[in-house]
């Protein structure tokens, strides 16, 4: 099916999503590590001039950017193991929740993590938990968001079992409380046990360092503003 390259970083949850999709479809690919996002490679700048971000997929030398766009491309190009439902309504629902999960939830959790203790942090935590409450309803009655097998939405939500728990640790907060979100908690536990999923996640230590550095930086910016 032609050569596939993925320009990515190991700690980015947006990149791991793409790896999961490629592996689920049995697609061989070359992982090209973008070493330093503060000093972007000529390759990345050439193929993603608009956003200059990872992940970036190169298929037959043609670039595809934005993780959700890449996931849909992978789904449409490699037909084995479909990730999206066949029914148009179910697909629209999957896309809706993917957009919600992909953006609002991730940045909501990150917002709550990097705020220093105080009213703003409390509000951010509440808002992030409201988002989780919606997801709790969505997983009700199902083992995975995709049903019996993992699908599109599980991949997009896949940051929750690993990245969220690291954000919680560095942010000194608990978002995914087992008592409040028992179903989501159980889903997270099941999802991260899957070998193919597990083998792509970055080492916890590396992620902790990365997030800690980001939070220190952001808090120092906030302090300097005062």
């Amino acid at each position: 099916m032609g050569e596939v390259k993925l320009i990515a970083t190991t700690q980015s949850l947006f990149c791991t999503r793409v790896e999961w999709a490629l592996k689920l479809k049995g697609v061989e690919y070359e992982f090209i590590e973008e070493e330093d996002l503060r000093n972007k490679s000529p390759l990345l700048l050439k193929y993603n001039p608009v956003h200059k971000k990872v992940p970036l997929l190169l298929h037959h030398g043609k670039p595809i950017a934005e993780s959700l766009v890449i996931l849909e491309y992978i789904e449409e190009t490699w037909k084995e193991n479909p990730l999206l439902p066949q029914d148009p309504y179910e697909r629209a629902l999957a896309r809706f929740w993917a957009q919600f999960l992909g953006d609002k939830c991730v940045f909501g959790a990150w917002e709550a993590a990097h705020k220093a203790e105080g009213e703003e942090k409390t509000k951010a935590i509440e808002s992030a938990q409201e988002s989780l409450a919606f997801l709790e309803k969505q997983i009700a009655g199902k083992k995975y968001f995709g049903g019996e097998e993992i699908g599109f939405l599980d991949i997009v939500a896949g940051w929750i079992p690993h990245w969220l728990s690291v954000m919680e640790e560095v942010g000194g907060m608990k978002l995914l409380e087992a008592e409040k979100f028992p179903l989501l908690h159980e889903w997270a536990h099941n999802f991260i046990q899957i070998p193919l999923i597990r083998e792509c996640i970055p080492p916890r230590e590396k992620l902790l360092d990365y997030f800690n550095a980001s939070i220190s930086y952001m808090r120092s910016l906030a302090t300097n503003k005062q």
Partner: protein
Amino acid sequence: MADEVVLLDFWPSMFGMRVRIALAEKGIKYQYKEEDLRHKSELLLKMNPVHKQIPLLIHNGKPVCESLIIVQYIDEVWNHKSPLLPSDPYQRAHARFWADFVDRKVYGVGRKLWATKGEEQEAAKKEFLEIYKTLESELGEKPYFGGETFGFVDLSFVTFYSWFYVYENFGKFSMEAEFPQIVAWVKRCMQKESIANTLPDQKKIYEFVLELKKIFGLE
């Protein structure tokens, strides 16, 4: 069995206009319900509890939210005519990327242009010009963003045309002078009935914005 299609919308919304154009392109009959966004209906709140936003399509009682998701849904269900997305996966990815760019960048900067003053507005104008320059560069010499025919990216962006007079007025620049290719493209798109019949008059949108500024004390 007859399809029941309802659209909850707000007439100046460029997101709602996307759906109206898609429905017109496909020749779908639907019931239009105007929402008062300061007093949202029970139906809207029930059918879109997550975002509580328009546009909202209700097809045989089932809600579909988010304008680009609605457009893709319409394209997949009513696939007998006027395809809105290309069939090739790479071209589809390209279309989705640019439609996503319009969503992320174009609305926000336009709003800042008319809703702010002074330095903030100056910064918004600079950003606005950069974003539209990127779009003009992507359009290039093509008749449409989609190539030879009107497509998904064209649909996602053309609805902002009804707001151009607002942007020009508050930004104090001429769209035609700054972005001649975009203006030529818009005129081309306006030859399509579905678009000409859907987009509200620019002056009406301008009056709406003046009202909005008064209501929110943004004068």
